């Protein structure tokens, strides 16, 4: 018997990084008290009119260009009509017939060494709904309209993915892309990047099967688990002679299963029509060119450059482009120091460790790229040793100032004066005649003992390489 083929398409809602809502002046900052970021328009008051927040347009264009799609030169906002308490106007303003990002786009993914190109059908601008809160008031539902009107870019893929792994690879790639484009902060916990999966199965060569939509899954791991569960469920249904129902299903990570939310057959006829309160969005060639010129370097190109120009490994390049903030930090550090490999080591070593321990993102690091460059310069010019540098880094992390300030305050300056080191070496040799005799008698490992004594005498500040060299020279002479 022929195997089932899995068919997956994703709809991703990326919240655009604007200051205010897509049609009103309310803030979209996360976590405010309910309904404190909802003005008269967001409340759907009579007579209120939407005014497009123009900041969303260049972001959508940038996205379209990055995936190689055609840009809708005249996109139109439509009304999607349905009743729900968290939808204050009774319709959601979205783009239906004429989206701002048209066809032609795609994204390349890699799964187990194999690359595949996933088509992107379209992407359109729309407003988010508010939130219904079912557990705050006994027997009642609360409505929070802070989120209502938040700008979203809905990115619709072709049904091109054939496994849960491919779906996750695509979602991750998209997650990385929108952050590098600086159009979405990618915060999945706060709902800034939401993934809905359309999953069906069929036998190759036959038409696609009926799909189920898996909604509101807020981590990549859960996307994979949810799809895998759903595929198994559908196979079981079909192989026992049943039929898959077109419906929306919710994934429950605690039980690792999907559950029916509502059947789409009962869903609304949305009665889309062009919103008469908003003008079509007209995009000129110049608008497109402006975004093309301002297009940041994308992750794939960065990784290639890190490897070719700076000789980093593929793995290191991957880590250093894990987020836009990471690569920005890294590139700033390289710019300031000219030392790609050393910069990479700092980032992936002490800095990452400290960030992980503190639970901070790199753009929240108390040690900025400029500060770290200052520290690297002091190692480079021999002012301090690599070991001291770790100590200085900790102090900088704790807010004790820049590298030079910390070095000064702690008196960490490395002793590099040849005369001073020779003086200390001679003193140590004079104090330990027996050990000198042993060394000269062939016990060369005694050298370590002398180095330790000299470093101790210098309170750790003598340059170890110089101490080594002077010791060897003196021991050979005496």
């Amino acid at each position, binding site marked *: 018997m022929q195997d089932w083929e899995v068919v997956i398409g994703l709809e991703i809602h990326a919240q655009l990084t604007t200051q205010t809502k897509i049609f009103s002046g309310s803030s979209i900052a996360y976590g405010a008290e309910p309904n404190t970021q909802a003005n*008269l328009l967001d409340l759907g008051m009579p007579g209120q009119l939407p005014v497009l927040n123009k900041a969303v347009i260049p972001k959508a264009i940038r996205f379209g260009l990055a995936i190689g799609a055609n840009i809708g030169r005249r996109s139109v906002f439509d009304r999607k*009509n349905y009743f729900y308490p968290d939808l204050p106007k009774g319709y959601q303003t979205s783009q239906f017939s004429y989206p701002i990002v048209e066809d032609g786009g795609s994204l390349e993914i890699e799964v187990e060494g194999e690359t595949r190109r996933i088509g992107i059908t379209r992407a359109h601008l729309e407003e988010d709904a508010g939130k219904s809160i079912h557990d705050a008031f006994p027997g009642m539902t609360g409505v929070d309209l802070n989120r209502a009107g938040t700008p979203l870019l809905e990115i619709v893929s072709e049904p091109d993915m054939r496994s849960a792994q491919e779906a996750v690879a695509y979602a991750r790639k998209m997650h990385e892309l929108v952050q590098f484009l600086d159009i979405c902060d990618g915060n999945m916990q706060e709902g800034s990047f939401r993934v809905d999966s359309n999953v069906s199965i069929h036998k190759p060569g036959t038409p696609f099967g009926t799909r189920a939509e898996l909604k509101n899954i807020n981590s990549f791991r859960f996307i994979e688990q949810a799809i895998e569960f759903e595929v198994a469920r559908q196979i079981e249904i079909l192989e026992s002679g049943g039929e898959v129902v077109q419906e929306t299903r919710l994934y429950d990570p605690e039980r690792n299963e999907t559950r029916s939310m509502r059947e789409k057959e009962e869903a609304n006829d949305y009665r889309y029509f062009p919103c008469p309160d908003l003008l079509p969005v007209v995009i000129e060639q110049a608008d497109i060119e402006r975004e093309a010129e301002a297009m940041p370097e994308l992750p794939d190109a960065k990784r290639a450059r890190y490897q070719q120009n700076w000789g980093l490994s593929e793995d290191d390049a991957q880590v250093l482009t894990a987020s836009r903030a990471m690569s920005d930090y890294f590139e700033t550090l390289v710019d300031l120091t000219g030392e790609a490999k050393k910069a990479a080591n700092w980032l992936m070593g002490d800095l990452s460790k400290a960030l992980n321990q503190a639970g901070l993102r790199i753009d929240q690091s108390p040690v900025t790229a400029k500060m770290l460059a200052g520290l690297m310069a002091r190692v480079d010019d021999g002012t301090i040793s690599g070991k001291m540098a770790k100590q200085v880094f900790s102090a900088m992390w704790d807010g004790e100032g820049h590298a030079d300030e910390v070095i000064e305050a702690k008196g960490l300056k490395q002793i590099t004066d040849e005369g001073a080191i020779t003086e200390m070496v001679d003193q140590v040799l004079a104090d330990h005649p027996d050990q000198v005799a042993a060394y000269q008698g062939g016990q060369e490992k005694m050298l370590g003992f002398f180095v330790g004594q000299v470093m101790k005498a210098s309170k750790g500040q003598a340059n170890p390489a110089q101490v080594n060299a002077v010791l060897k020279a003196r021991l050979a002479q005496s």
Partner: protein
Amino acid sequence: MHNLSLKTLSERLQRRELTSVELTQHFLDRIARFDGELNSYVTVTPELALDMAKEADERLDRGEGHRLTGIPVAHKDIFCTRDVKTSCGSKMLDQFLSPYDATVVEKLNALGMPILGKTNMDEFAMGSSTESSYYGQTLNPWDKKAVPGGSSGGSAAAVAAGLAPVATGSDTGGSIRQPAAFCGISGIKPTYGAVSRYGMIAYASSFDQGGPMTRSAEDAAWMLEAMAGLDERDSTSVSLARTDYARDLAQPVKELKIGVPEEYFSEGLDNEVAETVQAAIQVLADQGAEVVPVHLPNKDLAVSSYYVLAPAEASSNLSRFDGVRYGHRCEAPKDLNDLYTRSRSEGFGEEVKRRIMVGTYVLSEGYYDAYYRKAQKLRRLVRDDFVKAFEQCDLIVGPVAPSVAFDIGEKTDDPVSMYLADLYTIPVNLAGLPAMSVPAGFAQGRPVGLHIIGPYFEEHKILQLAHQYQQVTDWHHSVATDYR
């Protein structure tokens, strides 16, 4: 005093021969005396009016007034007015105090025009007779058996009866011009986009346009200048090169070419109304205007197109009235669907429900192409007719309505006959053009309006023709016996 022009009132106020408080009190007194019967106001706001009048007087005393400062105004109850009930003629908003001012209200407030109150209207501006108001029928001051027209029937009746010197109105399919014609006053619907819709409760957004309802063309020019202009809060609002609409009032009409569309004088038009309008056109010809025939071949498509598109937009615009956040909410809803169904069933009247049903139907899957899309095509044909006609003339004139004001109750059982009462005004809204009604005489003892339609943003030319007509006629000075 209640029948004086804005110019005269303004001069007396500026010279301090008259105070705004005296003037405002005069209108409040008349409202108290007459409106119990006439029912042109939903809400009268005496305290607010007198407070504003006092402030206006202080400004005038300091010599800081605008020419409209101190002249009271009545607002159609479709305009949101802060802390004042804004009902839109509906039970749905019977308890609704608006938390903000519409742009039009804000602008007139800023000039110091005291608000006398909010005028009656067809529910959500859906109607041509003011009979669909939750607040009862407004009577026609000329004949109390007759409707005042609609939907701005309250504003028209109030101005005609001297219960307000001027009023605001809104026109989606004729709602300024038809009641102006029925009540014998002047009313202009500006080009779509000239007056901000912000705060004007939406019926059919791509048609709705606010405008003034006044005693004369000159008054209308003054008011329109105060109301029009770009508003960043309304995306469909337009930046206007000039808003000095009175600039050409004094220019003679002899340079103007007046187009008369044959289709506006065809079957269905009352003979006496036709004769009255023809007589008005003859007056214009006598004044030297060149009268030419023009054609609007798709006129008959307009009503059908409008009654698909306007309900479609309305069905969506009125979805926000769901009983959740404000407005009427039913008692003890069982569940969410019950809350929606009963709040809306109880809160909306028959005509509103009818249009929501029609609008929902024409937008439904499978019907969209047959109705909505086709109606949009007709809309373009109707607009193209006007564009072509204006290649041959400066302005188009004709009747406003096929008859004079009909009797109360005459058309309430036959919605289609009510819809056809707007067959001359609706094409103008489909095209988004400016147009005006000015009093042109009487038929069957009830007023007749002359319809003047202009090219986009040429309100000043419409007002010029209307004003010149009013220089040689005095229909606009006629006042019904009871209200002199």
